């Protein structure tokens, strides 16, 4: 165990810090009052990712030939840490970078890697995930969106649901049924679908936050070239599971949590509670400290997994808890923030007297969605107990 960084890495950290200081997007109040999926915000978010990429700070660990730098995981960790410290906005292309990217690197053809990976990094192409269907939620493998291979093309018919970012995504990585007669896990394939293909209809779904963050996506005789198949025909479940593993890590990512915790501590110091800063109230202090300890534990937990990854050790049971713990922790942080805000908590974005642009209320609801999405907390517990502890499947 050695948590010190080499001299070169410390130099690199300084570089990143000063770069962020110079290049961090200016706070724009009119922008903060818009919903996250407003086209202007999407445009700015793409510009931010592009800028970060050009500076060399996005997906640094990817191989050079696909737009990465083959850099060490340590370097990427330094960037992530500095981004938290600088309160930098996250990446709009995170699903492409953290979910599809690693899957393509492992399962994609050389052509696919060269075609898709670089544009994921530059935010030229934003990806969405076509997994859930109206009849296939926790039981994802029962999905029914059909893809029939006719000549060199798949003809796709069916419907996806809860598809985040589909309203502005350029591409979708999608699970489809290619063999309806095979057992459910063995008739699924993994397709890359251009969202501009005729026959695709995207219909926004309003979330409890009031925003149209996710969508229904309908496919009517949508033609997808066979070359867009990732992995073998009917072997999509294997590929999908790989992406799901990366999704659980993305959703359970600790950098976002650390940033939220910092904001919560700042809020606690600035809010008054019966004539004193809330952070001086002994009960609030207990709650803050408990959250901070859980956040710090997850930080060191991610270091531990990072070390395993560098050493090429399999992730094991330690990694199985990331999604469950991370998403619940985020929600608990927001929950305490609302408690601190009291009567100010329910004020909507853009309303007079609203605190922090109403982000806490928004995040309070949004983080509840993340507890459900990407495999509910209950499904996570099944995964941990079955795959991690070897407890038998439920009848």
């Amino acid at each position, binding site marked *: 165990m050695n948590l010190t960084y080499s001299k070169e890495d410390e130099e690199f950290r300084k570089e990143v810090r000063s770069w962020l200081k110079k290049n961090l997007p200016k706070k724009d109040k009119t922008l903060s009052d818009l919903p996250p999926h407003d086209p202007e915000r999407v445009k700015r978010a793409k510009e931010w990712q592009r800028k970060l990429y050009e500076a060399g700070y996005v997906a640094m660990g990817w191989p050079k030939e696909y737009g990465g730098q083959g850099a060490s995981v340590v370097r990427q960790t330094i960037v992530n840490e500095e981004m938290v410290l600088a309160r930098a906005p996250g990446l709009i292309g995170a699903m492409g970078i953290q979910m599809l990217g690693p899957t393509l690197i492992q399962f994609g053809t050389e052509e696919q890697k060269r075609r898709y990976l670089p544009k994921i990094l530059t935010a030229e192409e934003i990806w969405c995930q076509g997994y859930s269907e109206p009849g296939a939620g926790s039981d994802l493998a029962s999905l029914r969106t059909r893809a029939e291979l006719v000549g060199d093309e798949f003809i796709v018919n069916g419907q996806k649901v809860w598809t985040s970012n589909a309203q502005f995504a350029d591409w979708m990585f999608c699970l489809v049924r290619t063999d309806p007669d095979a057992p459910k896990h063995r008739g699924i394939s993994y397709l890359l679908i251009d969202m501009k293909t005729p026959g695709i209809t995207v219909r926004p779904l309003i979330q409890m936050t009031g925003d149209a963050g996710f969508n229904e996506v309908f496919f009517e005789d949508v033609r997808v070239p066979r070359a867009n198949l990732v992995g073998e025909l009917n072997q999509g479940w294997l590929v999908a599971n790989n992406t799901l593993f990366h999704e659980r890590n993305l959703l359970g990512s600790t950098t976002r949590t650390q940033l939220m915790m910092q904001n919560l501590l700042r809020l606690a110091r600035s809010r008054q509670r019966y004539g004193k800063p809330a952070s001086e109230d002994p009960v609030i202090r207990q709650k803050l400290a408990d959250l901070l300890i859980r956040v710090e*534990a997850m930080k060191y937990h991610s270091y531990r997994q990072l070390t395993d990854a560098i050493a090429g050790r399999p992730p094991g049971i330690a990694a199985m808890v990331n999604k469950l713990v991370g998403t619940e922790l985020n929600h608990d942080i927001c929950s305490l923030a609302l408690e601190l805000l009291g009567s100010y908590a329910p004020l909507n974005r853009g309303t007079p007297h609203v605190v922090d642009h109403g982000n806490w209320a928004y995040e309070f609801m949004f983080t509840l969605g993340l507890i459900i999405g990407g495999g509910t907390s209950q499904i996570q517990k099944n995964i941990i107990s079955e795959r991690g502890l070897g407890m038998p499947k439920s009848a």
Partner: protein
Amino acid sequence: MDFGLSEEQELLQRSAREFLTRECPTTFVRELSKEKDGFSRELHRKMAEQGWTGLLIPQGYGGLGLSMLDMALLLEEMGRAVVPGPFMFSSVLVTLALIQGGSAAQKKAWLPRLAAGEIVGTLALLEAADRLDAAGVTLKAKKNRTGYTLTGVKMFVPFAAAADVLLIAARTGGRGEDGISVFLVERDAPGLTCIPLEIFDLTRRVYEVSCNNVTVPSTALIGGEGQGWKLLSRLIDAACVALAADSLGGAQKALEMAVEYTKVRTQFNRPVASFQALKHMAAEMVSEIEPARSLVWYAAYAFDARPREASRAASMAKARLSDVYARTTNRAVQMHGGIGFTWEHDIHLWFKRAKWNEFAFGDATYHRERLAQLDGF
């Protein structure tokens, strides 16, 4: 940047587990709980042969000179095996007091004997007020021509009757953190008496220790007169890391016992492990234990390598593991059903030790507030 264990550390874990499985099964733990002092000098000697009693002691004084992280890994195994005895108090706390606060002569006099397992020490910190802060230390040490005279009562002293030497926190003057001094006193010193207090944890013993005009030579003073609180603070941090490590090992074992039991216990014609109610309970235990493990490693590492972070990390680990161990053993008992409530089944050994660990050296509430103060909330 490396947040993992070395091969040597993994070897230490494995060999400790093998040794304790062999030398300290629960049948032995139960036997020992009926003995007068709850302590086996033979086991202590065998642990000394493994090098454990000298793990932290520099090689020049007969030890292995290893780190707090190594010690934490060993203590985790001891918690797993609910090892009875004063090991943690002797080979971590008293030992560290000498390493960090002792003069060359004191180190030479005591460390080789501690390393060899010839003598056992313990820490007498608390008094009747049960306060962990400096104001809790009121036992008087009055200077005389050849040394000091100690008068007062220490409480909840672990394994005092088994110990050969007691590290006693006393007040030589002043108030609060000023004027506290630390003495290493032999247990058979005239005027020193130990009264056992019976507790529900079968693996621990605590005593009321009275000092009635106990005279000690000036060489018994560890560190400067009136300078003891800094050393004691450091020992409290060490105790937090040690107890957190012990709790981690115990929690992991309780989880494993509960999961194994549910796999063999059948009701409604199937193993109860197939019921989601129990699977989710087990998963929740894992989701608390695994991040907590990372926190314990960090606290142990910080104790040596990041002095400015050490107290903060120790408090975080102690607060979290106090909660997690208590909650895990509670769930583990429930997962066993009726048999888990019996004296015959072993699970209560962990359940009770979890409670002792929870309150010793500050409970979760205490350490959360300490963290809030250290971080300037």
